[in-house]
């Protein structure tokens, strides 16, 4: 008997706090699988952020430092500069990375910090109750945009993967989704590549993962999953925007 699919060993065998259909779990799983493929969990330090992603330490068999809201790239910079031989990644949501932490992510990227950043874009502030995020879609209703995001008032959603790919310090930037088996295969490859850049000391790598937040979108998990494909991917196209070394 052969196991064709089993839990990644870097992932703890515990129930998560994530809501049914939340894509955080899928993204966690792919990050763990990437760590497994390089055998680096024991030398990896995760920088948790604020939001639903804060409990990194409950789900991964790795050392974790908690970061203030938006500051994970600065914290990761401190960790990596102090311990350059370790693998360091941050795991951040869209409010965290693209609103309050915009300065930290852009400068860490521009310095070409030898870290990996996993950015989960679910178009909303999940933990705080579904408020408008910098990635909220035009017209999308949230608890702070009850009539839908008005682009005249609030501007349009950030496309972080493209934005960061324009910086010389960025070695790899890709956007992935985990809403279908096909996209998961691409996502798995991209996340592995993002860690490979660090393992091979080739530079700053950025992954933007599109994710469903069924609870705050007011949708059942299947409808929320469909929204990723129908609404998000047309605005946030999947793909690799920078791949300096063609890894």
């Amino acid at each position, binding site marked *: 008997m052969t196991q064709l699919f089993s839990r990644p060993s870097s992932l703890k065998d515990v129930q998560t706090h994530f809501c049914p259909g939340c894509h955080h779990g899928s993204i966690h*799983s792919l990050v763990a699988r990437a760590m497994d493929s390089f055998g680096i969990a024991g030398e990896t330090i995760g920088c948790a952020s604020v939001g639903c992603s804060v409990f990194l330490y409950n789900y991964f068999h790795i050392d974790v430092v908690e970061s203030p809201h938006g500051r994970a790239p600065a914290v990761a910079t401190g960790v990596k500069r102090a311990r350059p031989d370790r693998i360091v990644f941050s795991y951040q949501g869209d409010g965290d990375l693209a609103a309050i932490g915009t300065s930290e992510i852009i400068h860490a990227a521009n310095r070409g910090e030898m870290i990996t950043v996993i950015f989960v874009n679910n178009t909303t502030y999940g933990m705080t109750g579904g408020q408008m995020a910098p990635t909220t879609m035009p017209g999308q209703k949230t608890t702070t945009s009850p009539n839908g995001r008005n682009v005249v008032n609030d501007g349009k959603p950030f496309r972080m993967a493209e934005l960061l790919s324009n910086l010389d310090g960025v070695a790899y930037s890709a956007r992935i989704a985990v809403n279908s088996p096909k996209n998961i295969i691409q996502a798995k490859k991209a996340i592995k590549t993002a860690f490979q850049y660090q393992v091979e000391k080739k530079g700053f790598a950025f992954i933007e993962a599109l994710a469903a937040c069924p609870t705050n979108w007011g949708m059942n998990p299947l409808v929320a999953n469909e929204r990723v494909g129908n609404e998000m991917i047309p605005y946030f196209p999947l793909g690799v925007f920078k791949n300096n070394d063609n890894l």
Partner: protein
Amino acid sequence: MPYIIIDEERCKGCGLCTVACPKKLVSLNDQPNALGYTVAVFNNQENCTGCCFCAEICPDVAITVFKEDLR
């Protein structure tokens, strides 16, 4: 012959596996588990190809896929 095992205590009944399976071999039960979720169940093992799509998409890593080796 491939087959899957669903951890009923981990499954949150989101149903993503039911649409990921190209053969539609997974469906949601109407009986809730201990946490109150109507969990996924595996039907019709004969047609499973071992593609792992159901396991790959499961956000709770509640599905393990096996293959019985041919002797």
